[in-house]
């Protein structure tokens, strides 16, 4: 049989070849090349985000090496945001990759969690839900959604845009992302005696008239959102039309630069506050330049910053493993768990380390839409809000 000898060897394939002979390797390292997997979405609902992050990943690894020795190759596969496809594609790539640079989508991350665990895979999801922190080896790139939104509230309270005992309307997607954000709102509400009106929607709902009407009727003082840009735009137009002149607080996936071309632009620039784990382009002009040089046709979103950030963290993990002389999967996983105080040069909020079940960071930026490249300016640099500690566990 053809299969017997190949995998019967049990991963001696790399055998620690190449010059760095003192570094131990097993799967996904060949000579001076490391292969990392990417399960992204290039054709599904999150295609736009997926492209930006993946491009940034690619660009990053074109310019960086692990331990100054190993070049990194990405095995990019497109799941179309379908778990079944993700699982299949992972089974196809898992014998060739050392770790996962990127996996898009909570459902796919959840579906693959047991596999990742069994295969000792270090993985960076491009989602910030709390569940992901429960998967060993999976590194959320910043604070989880609940912490994030709570930090947003802190900012609003500080700026006097919201007061104790106010009423808040929260529109959220069904599922992890939305629920996680809502949990943040609820936690804050409990502390500050806010009254919360909840409205759950599906990602395909585009028309927020009914929800905003309901909020207006209840006289809310703030609209909180854990939804997508489309819904944000609708909320803004309807709020404007109904004269519901209150701030809008969103977590990072809520905003896309494209919104500034739409009719809601004016309202958004004056009313929207985005709590985000990554900084805006105006703080990182060189990132944007590099990206635009490489992909002249693209209109970059903040996904680019996320992509660079997660690659930077991956680099730090791999560097550490390499220094430990152990670029095996187990070695990488160890390096990942031992990580402390990751600084990505201001791209991503500081990471305090990865511990199962805990938000990897307590900090957030606050951004606001503006006519700058990337569409947003930084209102507040990374900071830790008053509620973060408690929620992050």
């Amino acid at each position: 049989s053809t299969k017997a000898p190949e995998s019967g060897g049990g991963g001696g394939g790399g055998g620690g070849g190449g010059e760095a002979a003192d570094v131990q390797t097993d799967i996904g390292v060949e000579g001076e090349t490391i292969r990392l997997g990417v399960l992204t979405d290039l054709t599904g609902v999150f295609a736009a985000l997926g492209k930006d992050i993946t491009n940034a990943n690619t660009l990053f690894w074109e310019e960086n090496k692990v331990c100054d020795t190993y070049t990194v190759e990405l095995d990019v596969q497109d799941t179309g945001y379908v778990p079944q496809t993700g699982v299949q594609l992972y089974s196809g790539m898992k014998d060739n990759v050392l770790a996962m640079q990127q996996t898009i989508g909570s459902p796919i991350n959840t579906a693959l969690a047991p596999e990742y665990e069994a295969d000792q895979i270090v993985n960076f999801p491009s989602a910030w839900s709390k569940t992901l922190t429960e998967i060993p080896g999976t590194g959320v790139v910043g604070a989880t959604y609940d912490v994030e939104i709570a930090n947003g509230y802190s900012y609003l309270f500080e700026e006097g845009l919201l007061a104790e005992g106010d009423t808040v309307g929260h529109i959220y997607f069904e599922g992890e992302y939305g629920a996680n954000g809502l949990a943040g709102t609820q936690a804050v509400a409990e502390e500050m005696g806010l009254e919360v009106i909840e409205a759950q929607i599906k990602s395909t709902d585009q028309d927020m008239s009914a929800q905003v009407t309901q909020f207006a009727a209840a006289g809310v003082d703030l609209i909180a959102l854990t939804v997508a840009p489309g819904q944000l735009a609708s909320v803004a137009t309807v709020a404007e039309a109904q004269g519901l002149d209150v701030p809008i607080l969103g977590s990072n996936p809520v905003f896309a630069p494209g919104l500034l071309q739409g009719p809601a632009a004016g309202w958004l620039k004056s009313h929207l506050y985005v709590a985000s784990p990554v900084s805006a382009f105006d703080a990182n002009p060189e990132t944007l330049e590099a990206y635009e040089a490489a992909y002249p046709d693209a209109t970059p979103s903040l996904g680019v910053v996320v992509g660079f950030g997660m690659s930077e963290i991956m680099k730090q993990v791999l560097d550490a493993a390499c220094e430990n002389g152990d670029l095996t999967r187990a070695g990488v996983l160890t390096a990942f768990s031992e990580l402390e105080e990751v600084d990505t040069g201001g791209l991503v909020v500081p990471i305090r380390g990865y511990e199962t079940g805990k938000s990897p960071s307590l900090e957030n930026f606050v951004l606001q839409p503006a006519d700058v490249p990337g569409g947003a300016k930084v209102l507040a640099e990374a900071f830790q809000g008053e509620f973060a500690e408690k929620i992050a566990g």
Partner: protein
Amino acid sequence: MSEATATKARRSSAGGARPLPGTARGRSLLKPVLLVLALVVMLALPLYVEEFWLRTGFAVFGAVVGAIGLNLLVGTTGQLSLAHAFFLAVGAVTYVFVSGESGGIGLADLSGLGLPPLLGLIAGVLLSGLAGLLFSPIAARLRGIYLGVASLGLVFIGQHVLNSWTSVTGGFNGRSAPEFSLFGFTFGNTDPDLFVLGVPFREAERLWYLGLVLALAAYLFARNLLRSRAGRALQTLRDSEVAASVMGVNVQRYKARVFLVSSMYAGLSGVMFALSIGSIAPESFGLEVSILYLAMIVLGGLGSVGGAALGAMFVSALPLIFQRYADTVPFVGGPGEGGLAAGEAARYLFGLAIILVVLFEPAGLAGLAGRFRRKARDPGGGRTTSRSSAATSSSTTSVPSDPPAQGSTT
């Protein structure tokens, strides 16, 4: 047939009564030999083929089971159903709930019964069947596209339940599915470690055999069913309910039964789906899934069991394979390079394939396969003979051009 026209024979009484063979088509030795060969290949495959293919294979087996079930309902009985995804979900969720453990990751506080997976599988099949049975009185009132869209409602209701009933379904993120095991033998990577001819038999290899057995059983059961008394009753139901009832068929009961059987198939398919992915999530049971299953049976050839299997293979494997070997396909660029993404190319190809098959081979893949088979049987045979055989046997699969039982027209 052509003889009847060639000789000027009046209806002759010669020959007397002949017993009626189940299928009186000339059967050559070729067929059983090919079948055995195919089986041997299928059995030996895990020794040679890498995990990606085996996993794809298992996914295909699961789809085959589901497609055969849907075909019984839609192709054979003419009950258009878009609810298949719902019944798949019932099977999958039941399995995961019955055999899964309480607890789990994330916010979700999952509950599970922790019973043996075999029980989970059986419960999944039964409960799914029950769901079908419960829906059948509604279905009995509706016809054609009305039934189709009403059944679509089930999918959306199902999605809602899947998303809301977190403790059982795991909610939006879903929950992971327990490994299958049979009397202590697990279908996982270890426990026991297994080597056959030096090849490690891990989860993918083990599941392949499980899938093979289940799909084969599902296939044989459906094929036998169609050639039987019950199968005929179902087919008549499709053509004319009144005629069927006047001929003694209890229409309501048969409709209920076919819903039962079809959704039991779906339930089994759902369990296999859960095993194949290792987890379940609402996304996996959306409208697209129902539509894909319909595509399977239409592409395969409505009403043909083998066709359903072929269609399932085509629809479920094609995108995966294409995705995997995207780099070797022309015009397809990497991300950000401006070209087509592989996934997009796969979707184009898939859409195109659907259109072409329906346009040029109305009897579906089954019809296509039939044509090849006939070619193989009389290679290079005279034009007339091959054409004549085409005419006689294609009629068993194709839809007649003038259905005689449409009430108003005859």
